[in-house]
């Protein structure tokens, strides 16, 4: 070993790998929603105070802070409240671009959720479009949103803006 050392300069990077594994507990209300998906159904919950129906419900009304105890079976159709067309490729992308990502307000629900829109050219998507869920084959249903393959236009006339303006 030489007595002479060259100063390599300050350390500017330090890699400290971290990995933690967690269990996930969906809870009572979300478990009901997930079990509904396993049967090919959208199951929500109604707040007894304000009457709003949440899907998926997390077990409480975020406005009133009370438990949501009444289960509500929702229909298979809903309204596109807003959307975007994805044109940017990213790692792990499983759908061919361009595709449509939309907020969908199921009939009877007061909370929209995100869904994939297919079977329509991307330049024809619009706010208010009426859509329906297309499910995977019965044998492939699982307690997961993966049970919904996508949403597609259901052929009904567009919804009136007044019916969904609260949910944008």
């Amino acid at each position: 070993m030489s007595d002479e050392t060259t100063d390599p300069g300050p350390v500017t990077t330090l890699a400290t790998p971290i990995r933690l594994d967690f269990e996930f507990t969906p809870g009572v209300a979300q478990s009901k929603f997930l079990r509904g998906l396993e049967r090919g159904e959208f199951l929500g919950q109604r707040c007894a105070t304000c009457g709003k129906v949440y899907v998926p419900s997390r077990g409480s009304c975020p406005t009133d802070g009370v438990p949501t105890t009444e289960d509500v079976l929702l229909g298979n159709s809903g309204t596109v409240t807003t959307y975007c067309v994805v044109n940017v490729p990213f790692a792990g992308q499983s759908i061919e671009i361009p595709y449509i990502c939309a907020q969908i307000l199921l009939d009877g629900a007061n909370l929209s959720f995100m869904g994939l829109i297919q079977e329509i050219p991307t330049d024809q998507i619009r706010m208010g479009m009426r859509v329906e869920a297309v499910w995977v084959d019965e044998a492939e249903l699982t307690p997961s949103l993966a049970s919904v393959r996508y949403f597609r236009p259901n052929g009904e006339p567009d919804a009136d803006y007044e019916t969904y303006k609260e949910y944008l």
Partner: protein
Amino acid sequence: MSATARAVRPVSIASFAQSQNVRKDDERNEVEGLMPVISEVFGNIGITKDDVDFICSGSTDYLIGGPFSFVMALDAVGVWPPRSESHVEMDGAWALYEAWVLLQEGEIDAALVYSFGRSSLGDLNEILTLQLDPYYEAPLWPDIVSLSALQARALIDAGQATEADFAEIASRSRRDALSNPKAQVRNDIAPEVLLEDDYVVAPLRRHALPPITDGAAAIVLAAGDKAAAWSERPVWITGFDHRMETHSLGARDLTTSPSTAKAAEVAGVAAGKVDVAEIHAPFAHQELIVRRALGLDDSVVVNPSGGALAANPLMSAGLIRIGEAAERIRSGQAGRAVAHATSGPCLQQNLVCVLEGGA
């Protein structure tokens, strides 16, 4: 009253509630676990969410393994119409401190404080490693039990404690917990029998470790007219302080707790007789260190609730100490009490709250 120089606005612990403390709550999510606690803490004094002006919570995303869990937890309260809200990535005792400071300013008269955490969702030993210095300590993954064992060893080597002392504390705590229906570990086992336990990490045997606990807790603070209206026997906070020591474990004398001693001095613990102390000591030997730092004599009843050795819901165990101490005063069992909360490895950060009864 407190010996501190600054003027303290009287603030009352108007209500306290805690969940059943359990090893694993794998049925309910965080919101579902919190809702009954929030409902109870309001229901105790017949108020609603609309009666509090400020909300502060204590929790950590590291327990659930997901971001912004504290934002989602607000669904358990129902923050509509919108109001001032805050969160600390700390035990709820520090959330209580923040609310107390706000009440000191005199702009508001009531606050809800809550905390929650499920320690069962991940490997707690690994999770707690991430609270260490990220460059020199955390990459070695020293677990919390081993670090606490180092502290216990230092205490023994200094001639300040024996393993029998640890067993004595554990035995007493879990025997006292027999009268606490919310506690998780409740039994009556003699210290001599406990000493037959195997070491988990020497010199700590199984009994000297806290249980792994899922739980939640909440307190309503009140000042002014609301304090009088909501409690027939108000429990007043007469001193409150928290202090922190260096991050570097090697730079600390682990047999002492200067941060507790300083907080106790500022909170005015020595200004009067202490009847009851609720000490947040997750590991048995830490009770000895904190007790000494608080300057408590042998007449003080320590941890009648069973303390953290009987139930240690992370992020709530400190807030529960304050709630339990307040309940002793409200029930007339104590006139003056000290509550303590700790955070970080080996008692790095400590909070001291002095409570007194009176009109």
